[in-house]
């Protein structure tokens, strides 16, 4: 599910993006009128000037026209300023009650997502896939582990930078169920272009179910293939960077893989998550994202096959 035209500021799916689009259309109309007016004035001026053999020697009678034009400009600007400030006020995260807090941490070049909870064993961790309940305000706490990134789901809200050493607060809300693609918006190095994630807005019930799954530890391998795959995972380099809750792998360098089988995409929403892509990604992630920090892994075909089977079973 990487495919989607749902990365679009003009198709709002929530109240905040809606506010912004409202301001946008107002601005666009005003600006178009101003542009047309300037050019009509210019055409009139040119037509008059073309007919003339010698320039006007009289003093220009234009001060009044100038005053009028400036007054109109100032008036329009004031109107735009007011709409802008009103919009900004409506978007302010201050004093907004929320149902949930999600911490999003930017890494080069993927997103770590944690559903915060008072009970520490209830914290669910995932990566590159943000689920939100429809119709509820969700507070996003933004942080960065390396350089500046920017969190941007155009269909839901504007952007907010993830700045190392500082936590920013952001509130989003989706009113329409659906899948929205989002992308890092602040240049962050080699794979800035391929640092995306998807937002899935789903009904509250589905969301709670999903969250419950996310809180659980990883499924135990069932088939022989899957068992071998787990062996491979734990005995080779995978565990050096990745964590699977319920196993000995617990590193936080790369994305959490506890429920990787349930995710729709791989490589920070760059390729769809399917067997072929997963194998290719494990073998040589740099082929998809040159410069990616995940090293190539020379597994023998059977091991790779088993590993993929195991990872896919982690729903």
């Amino acid at each position: 599910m990487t495919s989607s035209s749902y990365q679009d500021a003009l198709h709002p799916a929530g109240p905040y993006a809606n506010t912004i689009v409202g301001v946008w259309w107002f601005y666009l109309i005003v600006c178009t009128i101003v542009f047309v007016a300037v050019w009509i004035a210019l055409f009139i001026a040119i037509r008059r000037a073309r007919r003339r053999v010698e320039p006007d020697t009289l003093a220009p009678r234009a001060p009044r026209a100038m005053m009028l034009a400036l007054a109109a400009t100032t008036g329009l600007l004031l109107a735009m300023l007011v709409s802008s400030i009103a919009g900004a006020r409506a978007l302010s995260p201050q004093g907004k009650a929320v149902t949930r807090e999600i911490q999003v941490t930017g890494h080069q070049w993927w997103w770590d997502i944690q559903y915060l909870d008072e009970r520490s064993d209830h914290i669910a961790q995932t990566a590159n896939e943000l689920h939100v309940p429809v119709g509820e305000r969700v507070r996003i706490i933004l942080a960065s582990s390396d350089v500046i990134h920017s969190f941007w789901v155009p269909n839901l809200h504007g952007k907010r930078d993830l700045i190392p050493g500082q936590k920013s607060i952001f509130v989003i809300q989706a009113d329409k169920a659906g899948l929205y693609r989002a992308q890092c918006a602040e240049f962050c190095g080699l794979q800035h272009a391929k640092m995306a994630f998807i937002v899935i807005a789903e009904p509250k019930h589905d969301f709670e179910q999903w969250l419950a799954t996310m809180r659980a530890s990883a499924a135990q391998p069932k088939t022989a293939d899957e068992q071998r795959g787990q062996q491979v995972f734990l005995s080779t380099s995978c565990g050096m960077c990745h964590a699977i809750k319920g196993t000995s792998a617990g590193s936080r360098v790369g994305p959490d893989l506890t429920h990787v089988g349930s995710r729709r995409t791989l490589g920070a929403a760059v390729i769809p998550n399917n067997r072929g892509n997963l194998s290719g990604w494990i073998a040589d992630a740099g082929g998809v994202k040159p410069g990616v920090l995940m090293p190539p892994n020379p597994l023998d075909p059977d091991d790779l096959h088993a590993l993929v089977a195991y990872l896919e079973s982690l729903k």
Partner: protein
Amino acid sequence: MIDLELHVQLAETWRKPRGLWGWLTDNHHTTIGMNFIVTSFVFFLLGGIEAILMRTQLARPENHFVTNDFYNQLFTTHGSTMMFLFAVPMIEGLGIYIVPLMLGTRQMSFPRLNQFSYFSYLIGGLLLYAGFFLNFGPDAGWFSYVPLSGPEFAPGKRIDIWAQMITFTEIGSLGGAVSMIATIFKHRAPGMSLNRMPLFVWGELVTSFMIVFAMPAVMVASSMLASDRLIATQFFNKAEGGDVLLWQHLFWFFGHPEVYIIFIPGTTMMSTLVSAFTKRPVFGYVGMVLSLVATAFVGFGVWVHHMFATGLPELGLSFFTASSVLITIPTAFQVFSWIITIFHGKFIVRTPMLYVLGFLFIFVMGGLSGVMLASTPLDWQLHDTFFVVAHLHYVLIGGMLFPLIGALTYWFPKFTGKMMNETLGRWTFAFFFVGFNLTFFPMHNLGLHGMPRRVYTYLPTMGWNNLNMLSTVGAYVLGVGVLLFMANAVISLRSGAIAGDNPWGSFSLEWFTSSPPPPYNFLYLPTTRDRYEIWTMADDQPLVTGFRPDRREVLITKLMDAFPDHKIETPRPTIWPTLLAGATGIGVITAIFTPWGVPLGMLLAGIALTGWFWPKPPHHELLEEQP
């Protein structure tokens, strides 16, 4: 013939040295100005080639024309080139060439400082491109945000090259600005009081003042970055009390005024062209000047609108929205004035006038999208997307490049004595205008449809394919326009029509001497009594006499009313400023690798400075009390 005799004497006194040695030692403002213009145009071409390469990469999704690493170097070098190595030096170079002629003087105030500025700038540019051609060009964007450009995430010397290139070009710009201000204040022809200066001179004056107050910010910032990288200072390391946003504040405190530094001279070129081709003074001279000054002042109070997405306090953001909106009013005043001027004038359709119309189309649109970006809610959506790329090119290309090409066409006869070909000129404009809009208009839509800037590729499923292809085609059309302009320049230089002194029948004093100007600029310095001097000059308008023709004397006038005050002798060609630039160059480039570069540079610079200022044998009155 007394005039002929004087000409021979003056030509000998002001003789320009030739060849390589001449290039290294000459400090006449026409030489330095032309050096700046040609060099910055070469950098413009390089930046343009980078743009073409980027557009080729983005023509199709998942394209493999260049690697991501090289793409990052491309856009960083493109941005840095266009801002630091093309726009500002071009503005300064044009000013250095034209302003003294407009003021009716023979030389600028600090010719050796100009010479030093030029060579500093040249070394900085060569440094950047040496890195780029050897595949270690900077790759963190032209505003090099920390920590991406800091020591941890940008190993190697790529960013150090960028930071030191900034140092060089800032030295160059600052030197040029100081010289420009002093010249405009003190070298005006008798009678050219401040309120009789041509608007282009006002533009250069205001821009120079902005440079004086804006450029130190980026020098401070880039020095902090370089020292973070070289000697492990902690300015931008949060863990040790540093702050990554400090960089952004410092950079944009320079970076936003930079835009006005580039575009204010652009608007005054517009005023010049509008007057020259409507045969009418620009409406509202005082208002125009106040607009420039107001833009300059407010321009220092808007930098935070580049940082709306960083999570600064809301009240502050509203203030910066308001000030960013406020800056529209003086610019609107200028646009209305030009329209009123055209309304009352003739309308002579020559190539430069086409660029005036192109400006009014493109710049007005860019200004309006700028008002959009000043709004915090809209900025949160549009910031760092292709919409911003579109906006900034509409403002900068529309606001600076279009007037510049028009102005270069207009002043080409002054530089060379030949007219540019009119037919080719119109074709050039057509390619420019169509190519420009084709390239950049679709970017507005791309941004709204979610395409972030600075991505080396995009997925085929994003729905951005056609607009990107269109934009790439446009870039090639624009490229053809640039080639046509160069071809026109070369052809016209060889076989253009002879221009004569004042081919356009224009108004300001640079047309009061032959084209190209003689090395001493004016046989007799002119005096003025009007803003549009040549149009209103009386038959008995007095000239200035009384200079020693065997020395490079120039007249210094009073600040306000330009009453003749005293004379000074300006220096002859000398190598020392070039050596000083070289010494600074050695120091600064060594400082990329070791801190010892700083004392080394200081030592060498000290030697060069002593050579520069060592008193020449006296030929004036000595102090009486001397033994």
